[in-house]
């Protein structure tokens, strides 16, 4: 590709939205419109059938898009592209909520000794916890509990299936080599 075409390619790739011809011209105003049009053609034809992406003219301008035939595979893999395991912080927060539900954010913060707001938001987003009610007292805080999908993921029938904490404390207190980074 010519330098001008390579510049357009880079700009179209980095842009968060389709770029209009005017915007592309503004990248290198001295080049002039016809040179930009030519360079745009060059970019488009270099992404022919030989590539997994193509330069597409859509209503608002030009944009690189993945070819339709790969869209489904990529979409399907999307979830796989995200980390599937919870961080230690998320697990701790989840454990507190599982055993103390319904429980408010302040109480979780207090037990963990750190602000847990962001972690809890993530857990809500992932559908593992949800607001189940409001507490009594000042400001009627939102109280959280675990969701059915939490049980489902762990393969538990209901919350009664969770091991009781008393057993847990005794059983796991010392000998386990906790906190081995994976």
């Amino acid at each position, binding site marked *: 590709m010519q330098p001008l075409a390579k510049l357009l390619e880079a700009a179209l790739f980095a842009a968060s939205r389709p770029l209009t011809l005017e915007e592309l011209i503004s990248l290198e105003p001295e080049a002039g419109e016809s040179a930009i049009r030519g360079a745009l053609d060059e970019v488009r034809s270099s992404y022919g059938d030989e590539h997994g992406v193509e330069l597409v003219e859509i209503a608002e301008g030009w944009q690189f898009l993945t070819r339709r035939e790969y869209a489904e595979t990529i979409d399907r893999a999307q979830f796989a592209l995200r980390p599937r395991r*919870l961080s*230690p912080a998320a697990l701790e927060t989840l454990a507190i909520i*599982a055993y103390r539900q319904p429980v408010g954010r302040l109480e979780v913060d207090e037990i963990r000794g750190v602000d847990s707001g962001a972690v809890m938001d993530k857990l809500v987003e992932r559908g593992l916890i949800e607001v189940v009610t409001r507490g009594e007292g000042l400001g009627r805080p939102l109280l959280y509990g675990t969701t059915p999908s939490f049980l489902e993921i762990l393969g538990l029938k209901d919350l009664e299936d969770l091991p009781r904490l008393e057993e847990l404390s005794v059983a796991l207190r010392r000998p386990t080599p906790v906190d081995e980074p994976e």
Partner: protein
Amino acid sequence: MTTPITRDSGGSGFVVELEKFSGPLDLLLHLIREDEVDITDLPIAKIADQFLSVIQDLGLNQAADYLEMAARLLRIKAQMLLPRRLGDDEWEDPRAELVRRLLEYQQIRELVDWFGRAAERKAERFGRGYEAPPADAPPAPLQIDLNDLLSAAERVISLIPEPMLHRVVPRPLDVEGATARIQALLEKHDTFGWSDAVGGGPHATLVDVLSTFIALLELAKRSALTLSQSEPFGPMVIKRATPREAA
């Protein structure tokens, strides 16, 4: 945050910007560089005096981190003055710990420069700017191992000094009661006054008043009634909403 402060020290004349220092160690390193002295054989008396005068000038003598360092420097300075016997192998240089920290910190500063340059260079390359809207993919098959959850619970338990008891805060406001009372009044009267709504007459407590007030606002919000006052601080008139108003 803070305005840059210029300080002229003797002939060397250096310009100090407060934001430039990320802490007392940074300031200390700055002084050492200015004086071109040997870190490993720190002229502690001189550096301590300079440190004190700089934090005084910059108003940093209010900041705990700087004060702590000032105290440390003065202590080392005093220890250096203590007589020691010749050939005393046991003698430990009171500066040793500070020198170790300074060297370590100097290394960190070196890394900061490297990190800064690396980030600058990375910023010259852009990734894809466009983010496709999330696909309607099936929900992520998140994996949580029960054992992981249990050891997390165990970690949490170990943090709790003693079993926590639930504090149950009694809820003194009785908004439901007040709402019922007002709704009963609305059945019977088109209009009534604030004191009717509160009920309890002279025995009404602050809790009664608050409960009633919240109930009235709630009912007004639900368009069950309208609230009006003829003048500021005048008596409140409560009026049953007409069906049209309620709609």
